[in-house]
């Protein structure tokens, strides 16, 4: 039962995307589409016929599946509403956070390969840029994780989420760095613009340019899931208060309520960041991401020096 909480992420991730878009529309003075629009998009794409490039190989065809399933397996490792995850049986998926980052990387790697598969310059551009961003982001995410993992004495996400204390100096620093990482990894302004199809500025969209029909649906859905998963990860690592430690119905209901509030808060934050910032030039990114990398290093050093 507790091992099925990842289904929450699969089902509700398009909704979160819809909510962020609605928030953004509100902030920008537009009406915006309904919050269910991403669901309609996915279903419509699934029903469309596909156009494939003759240049592509099987890499292009398996990539949507690999991205989709690696995101779901990553979701299986995350405590969503309860930290009670069986950790010691052979066939249970265990919530190790380092493994989770590498499972994410599997999807990212194949996405970058598929972008090169069609032999167009746009794909290569997107692929190259995505790799650069992930080179700058990955060490930062790892350092944030190290801080929380060392504080909890475990790299298991359930153990990390069970930690009571929050908002110690080291955690606050790590939280800021992690938020920048979430913005970069979900392809949002100021790093990437999710609404653009302007060839020269796109990163994530550039990689998806050749996709259509059900493959595009899978890619989009994976992207929504990844976004919600990163929110959940931030919640688990930095403000786990309210998450259930058992699977009794009463505490699960409370936990679900608290969880939805936290995720809505994260969604609101994203909308505010996106509406108030301008997209940065690509070569200005190293200063943003490098700055937050320093924050992550500081958070680890703070924890080592003052112990909290």
């Amino acid at each position, binding site marked *: 039962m507790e091992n099925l909480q990842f289904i929450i992420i699969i089902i509700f991730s398009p909704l979160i995307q819809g909510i962020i878009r609605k928030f953004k529309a509100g902030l920008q003075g537009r009406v915006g589409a309904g919050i269910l629009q991403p669901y309609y998009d996915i*279903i419509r794409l699934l*029903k*469309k*016929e*596909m*156009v*494939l*490039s*003759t*240049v592509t*190989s*099987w*890499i292009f065809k398996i990539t949507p*599946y690999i991205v*989709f*399933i*690696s995101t779901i*397996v990553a979701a*299986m490792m995350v405590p969503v509403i309860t930290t009670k995850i069986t950790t*010691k049986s*052979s*066939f*249970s998926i*265990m*919530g*190790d956070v*380092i*493994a989770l980052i*590498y*499972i994410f*990387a*599997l999807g*990212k*790697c194949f996405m*970058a*390969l598929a972008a*090169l598969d069609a*032999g*167009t310059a746009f*794909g*290569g551009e997107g*692929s*190259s840029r995505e*790799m650069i961003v*992930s*080179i700058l*982001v*990955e*060490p930062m995410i790892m*350092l944030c994780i190290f801080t929380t993992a*060392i504080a909890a*004495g475990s790299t298991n996400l359930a153990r990390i989420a069970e930690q009571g204390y929050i908002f110690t100096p080291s955690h606050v620093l790590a939280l800021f760095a992690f938020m920048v990482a979430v913005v970069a990894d979900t392809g949002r302004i100021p790093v990437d613009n999710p609404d653009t199809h302007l060839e020269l500025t796109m990163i994530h969209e550039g990689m998806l*340019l050749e996709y259509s029909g*059900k493959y595009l*649906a*899978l890619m989009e859905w994976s992207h929504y899931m990844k976004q919600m998963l990163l929110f959940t990860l931030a919640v688990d690592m930095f403000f786990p208060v309210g998450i259930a430690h058992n699977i009794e119905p009463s505490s699960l209901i409370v936990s679900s309520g608290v969880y939805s509030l936290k995720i809505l808060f994260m969604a609101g934050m994203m909308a505010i960041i996106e509406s108030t910032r301008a997209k940065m030039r*690509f070569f200005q990114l190293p200063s943003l991401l490098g700055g937050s990398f320093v924050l992550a*290093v500081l958070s*680890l050093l703070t924890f*080592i020096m003052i112990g909290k």
Partner: protein
Amino acid sequence: MTSILYLGIMLFFVGAVIPLISVRKTKNYAYILPTTGAVTLAIFGAYLLFTPPVNISSISITPVLEFVFRGDAISGFFIFVISILTFSVSIYSIGYTKSLANKGVMGFLFSIFILSMYAVVLSGNIITFLISWETMSVVSYFLVTFDREEKSARAGLIYAVMTHVGTAFIIALFLILYKYTGYTDFSDIKTAVKDLPDAIKTVVFVFAVIGFGTKAGIIPLHTWLPEAHPAAPSNISALMSGVMIKTGIYGILRIAVDVLGIGPEWWGIAILVIGAVSSVLGILYALMEHDIKRLLAYCSVENIGIILLGIGASMVLASNGLYKLSAIAMTAGLYHTLNHAIFKGLLFLGAGSVVHSTHTKNMEDMGGLIKLMPYTAIFFLIGSISICALPFFNGFVSEWLTYQSLLFGFKSVSVTAKVVAPMGGAALAFTGALAIACFVKVFGISFLGMPRSDHAESAKESSPSMIAGMAILALLCLVFGIFPDSTIKLFSPAVLSLTGAEYMSSGKNILYISEIASGLSPLAILVAMLAIFFAAVVLIRVVGGKRKITYGDSWDCGIPSLTPRMQYTATAFTKPIRIIFKKIYRPRQDVKISYTLKPLLVKSIKYSSEITPFFDRYFYKPVANFIHSIAGKVKYLQSGALHLYLGYILATLILLLVFMS
């Protein structure tokens, strides 16, 4: 059981001699002999892992010159690693060497090279070790210069110089050990070394790191790797990069960990820092390469760094008294040693197969090979995924263990270890991300898209034996990735004899570390992925129904059609990295524009860019120039006249007599 060893050695000897008998008409099936030899020696290696140390033989020629061969769990582990790679490379060589000019010589050197590596890890005393070590270096020199080209000769020279600088340090450290303990046998030295003063131990440690580090390819002693590995034929590159550089790791383990025992904490910290620097710089340089084999050679530098991160963490933890955690870190180091031998062997064999078929090493001339060489492509992809440490292949497990070992550093008492170890983890994360970018580039540019040259367009799949050699290694990548607990059980005796503790993972097909209450189960991840895959396929079918697929051109913005020249190139792919890390690369670019009518009508634009190899330019070049200038001055002593040389001898004799009296 030693009879198995003798059988294996005989097989290699016969395998070396047969090609020599008929140099011209050698059938490539002679490689069957090393293949079977590798099987028997793999059995022997496994046997050594599970028995107490075995004295194999000692041949005394004079009291000073005594050959001692001894095997223990550590040698057993390395024999096992060498045998696995030898097995598949021998099979691969059956097809690969068909087109070589000097088949017989190749067959001879191939077997002797492998035998010398076995001899290095089985040596029981100083003199045996040095002779085996030199044999290995000399034979590999001949293999590097096997293609009689000017480039190979240059690479061979650099290799010979670097490897002898390393050997000089190794000889020095052995002389010191002999002088202060009075023994030549490793086991005697090990018992006597405890009474040595710390300063002597430190000198021995530093010399071991420099001497063996040169062979392993740590930065800044790595310069020979990107020269020598691409110059050698690809089956040899696989052996050199997969296992020969591991003898350097073996030397560091044997001397710095086994013989010297637990040292002060800064030894471990030093190894950690060397590992971190080698891994980050190694992969940064790899990213800039367009020569597929040079790229892989730089990538070996990176992986040696990762191995040293595990070993360094183990030493730090041991000197802090955390023996159980130290065993886990050593497990990580050895696991990555095994893994790197397999996936780097696989990648070099794959690269060899590509070079063999396209006749170019330049990635900018490849492209679209996935359709022309489907098997090579899939095995190369498996190798790339493994080296990027992505689930569920073998690199994933060993890098996960390395991360955990580095995090254990926080449990040690000293603040230095607490700070340095997690920073090593950050370096590993950075390396991991760069490695993914690097192999996306390699695979994406050379195998995907459209063929970029006529060479690539006319490429053909390699012969069945070459494919079989790669297939075995690809399968092993998967097996060692899915069954980590069985793999660790296999070499835990070696960990036990190195650290005095063992890492036993509880549970089946699962890595569980009770100290941090976390674990990893690649098999579970694989099963979950398969289950979700089938669920996804069903879901799509139910919601979307069956739709037809239309094929068309790639998106071309409306221009008539895309040509291969419009694809993203390897240079373009890594250009942002070159710009962001320009402090490290110090790139130089050159734009030449020629005009028909200046400045309006441009005839042609020629763009070239290169990076400054930092250590070559600012360290090796001044040293080489200095030696050249010294040699120029010494030259005047060499007149070529016999009476002058006689005069030198007389003068030396008189000087010696004066000093001795």
